[in-house]
């Protein structure tokens, strides 16, 4: 079986399995609450795997290894931050947020502050962060399909859109819980098995990473897609067919150390031991410095590391798809336990991208020449292992990558669609249920269609880096809202609104500047690329200052809300913690669930104890 055919089979299998799981759930999706939060009856183990499945995105699966190959040690902060972010979430918001009974982040804002305006602001931010996070998923899908099967770049994203829309619109959240729990294990095994094989092969060969510039490990032919500017770290002679520095060449070319331009469609033949020229966007440091902390070759690396840690640790709680998933826990105590299991699962998974990244430096360094480092994980198995075994492992990795795009994209689509259908398409509360579900489906199409269009123009920033920007916006907006909303009673609607607007506007401006203009040097570049370190404290300060200045606007019912957020479940029967018009106090939750589902039905696999 050729590599292309194996990859096509792998991608189709994952797509079909997801669609089947979606249809399987369809029969159970009877009520609106089934659609949004799986009727809150998913057990912690299923839920933890589903959270992990949804969270491990293209950035975790492909992006981290690619960034490690290019930048080295400093990238390890990404996986550590992704895990530590859940710990912060566990400590600060998990249980109270679940107890608040809100379905979405805007719901929380409205319940806590009693303000429709704050709700609207939160809705806009959910859509913004969701789209910012979806674009790299769809780009990752395009890249994977193009690398593995030679399909055009738009095709992968389109497949993801089609599968997600059919699964989400058909089954809502319930079917996704089941599918995503499976996808976690698929992703984990699809990285674990190749990683173990690669470690074994590496041990067997007795290879090691030398400390000089990365060199080709075997003869490799590299095709340059577009006009590129590359830097040769040392003077050497390479075989090039195409254009170099404006001259047409076909044969050995002497490249002096320094910057050269290579024309589109040129092919470069690297022999074993040739030092790899590096695309101008990436640093061309020696492996000795690559191994060191702060050796990434960027300006102000210490600031960048600390700000990145802050963004990821605090941004996790503000990601729309993460929070929706927490509402599927039965109560606050279970939410904490689920989060603990999630941290264990993530810790196990995040050991693996490091292995791929470090091997990538040794076996696929030619990616530095094209700048296409996100393909590291996809190319490694075939490069290190010849024959059928390499093809099969590569197909497995491709399947895992598609599971990553599908699960994260469907989770985000559900959250963004929920917000769009509630706050933009806005069906009246008393409208017929069928109409509400129809508006949810319309919302789903808009939720993933727009980022698909945005993902089409090829922008090269690295999957994990774009996702990092989504984290920064979330950290600068929802983190202060949630933390202050839960732990500080004097937060007012005016304070929350000014904070959201200020933090959201500044962080978004920084993100857009980084993506559009190429400001990547000096302090200005460092501050814009990693806005969290200044934007998060600023938002906190604005929210606190404005809240203190508008003390009279404090929510009248804040005492009761605090009881509801913090009182343990054991006491909910004694305390009347529900609010008037509440649709989700824990006690009523259970009875209504039994009410609207025929008792003869078998429970969904995702809702019973395995």
């Amino acid at each position, binding site marked *: 079986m050729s590599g292309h055919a194996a990859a096509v089979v792998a991608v189709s299998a994952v797509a079909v399995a997801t669609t089947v799981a979606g249809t399987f759930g369809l029969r159970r999706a009877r009520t609106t609450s089934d659609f949004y939060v799986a009727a809150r009856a998913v057990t912690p183990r299923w839920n933890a795997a589903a959270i992990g499945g949804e969270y491990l995105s293209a950035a975790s699966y492909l992006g981290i290894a690619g960034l490690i190959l290019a930048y080295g*040690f400093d990238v*390890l*902060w990404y996986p*550590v*931050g992704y*895990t*530590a972010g*859940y*710990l*912060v979430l*566990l*400590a*600060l918001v998990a*249980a109270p947020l679940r107890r608040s009974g809100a379905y979405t982040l805007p719901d929380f804002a409205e319940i806590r502050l009693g303000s429709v305006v704050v709700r609207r602001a939160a809705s806009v931010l959910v859509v913004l962060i969701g789209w910012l996070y979806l674009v790299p998923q769809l780009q990752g899908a395009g890249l994977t399909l193009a690398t593995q099967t030679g399909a055009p770049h738009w095709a992968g994203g389109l497949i993801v859109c089609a599968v997600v829309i059919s699964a989400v619109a058909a089954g809502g959240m319930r079917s996704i819980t089941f599918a995503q729990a499976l996808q976690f294990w698929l992703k984990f095994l699809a990285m674990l098995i190749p990683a173990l094989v690669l470690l074994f092969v590496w041990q067997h060969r007795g290879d090691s990473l030398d400390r000089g510039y990365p060199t080709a490990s075997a003869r490799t032919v590299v095709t340059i897609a577009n006009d590129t500017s590359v830097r040769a770290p040392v003077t050497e002679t390479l075989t090039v067919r195409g254009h170099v520095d404006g001259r047409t060449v076909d044969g050995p070319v002497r490249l002096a150390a320094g910057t050269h331009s290579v024309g589109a469609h040129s092919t470069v033949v690297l022999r074993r031991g040739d030092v790899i020229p590096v695309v101008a966007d990436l640093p061309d440091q020696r492996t000795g410095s690559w*191994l*060191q*902390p*702060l*050796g990434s070759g960027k300006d102000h690396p*210490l600031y960048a*590391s*600390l700000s990145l*840690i802050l963004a990821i*640790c605090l941004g996790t709680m503000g990601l729309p798809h993460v929070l929706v998933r927490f509402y599927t826990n039965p109560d606050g*105590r279970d939410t*904490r*336990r689920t*989060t*603990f299991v999630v*941290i*264990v699962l993530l*810790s196990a998974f*995040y*050991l693996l991208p*490091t292995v791929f990244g*470090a091997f990538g430096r040794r076996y696929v360094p030619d990616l530095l020449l094209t700048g296409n480092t996100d393909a590291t994980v996809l190319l490694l198995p075939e490069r290190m292992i010849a024959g059928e075994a390499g093809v099969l492992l590569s197909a497995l990795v491709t399947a895992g990558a598609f599971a990553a795009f599908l699960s994260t994209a469907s989770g985000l689509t559900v959250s963004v669609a929920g917000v769009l259908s509630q706050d933009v398409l806005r069906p009246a509360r008393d409208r017929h249920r069928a109409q509400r579900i129809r508006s949810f489906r319309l919302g789903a199409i808009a939720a993933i269609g727009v980022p698909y269009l945005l993902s089409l123009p090829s922008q090269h920033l690295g999957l994990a880096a774009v996702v990092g920007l989504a984290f920064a916006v979330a950290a600068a907006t929802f983190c202060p809202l949630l933390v202050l909303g839960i*732990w500080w009673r004097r937060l007012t609607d005016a304070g929350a609104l000014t904070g959201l607007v200020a933090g959201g506007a500044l962080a978004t401006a920084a993100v857009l500047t980084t993506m559009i203009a190429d400001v990547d040097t000096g302090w200005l570049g460092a501050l814009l690329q990693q806005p969290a370190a200044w934007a998060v404290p600023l938002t906190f300060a604005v929210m606190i200052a404005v809240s203190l200045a508008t003390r009279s606007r404090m929510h009248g019912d804040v*005492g*009761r809300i*605090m*009881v509801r957020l*913090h*009182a*343990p479940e*054991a*006491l909910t029967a*004694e*305390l*009347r913690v529900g609010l008037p018009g509440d649709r989700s106090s824990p006690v009523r939750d259970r009875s209504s669930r039994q009410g609207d589902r025929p008792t003869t039905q078998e429970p969904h696999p995702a809702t019973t104890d395995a």
Partner: protein
Amino acid sequence: MTTGPVKRVRITHPRTEAARRAPARTPSREIDEQTELGEIYMRSLIRSQRRLALAVCGAIGVVLAGIALAGAAFPRFGTSRLLGLPLPWVLLGVLVYPVLIALAAYAVRQSERNERAFTDLVRRR
């Protein structure tokens, strides 16, 4: 008809309204009715949970910022090795995860303990 000394009986007004004890005001009722006492109960719970949350976040900050600053402050940290692998990679690639898991276990156990203490306090009549 009986004769003999009649036993003297003392008759008093029962004064029921004053004598009967007011219905027990349980802590949960105080909380429910948003009285000042109820507020004090809730504030004590929130304070203990907040202290726990900040302690856990502080510990994460110390661990992560510590590793980041160690790289900047001690150049030798970057070049030392553990089991044949570079020490910073072992630390940040592997060893930091058990620390995070231990902190998570501590956070779950401790916050459930805080809640149990609060439940016992409120249930005590």
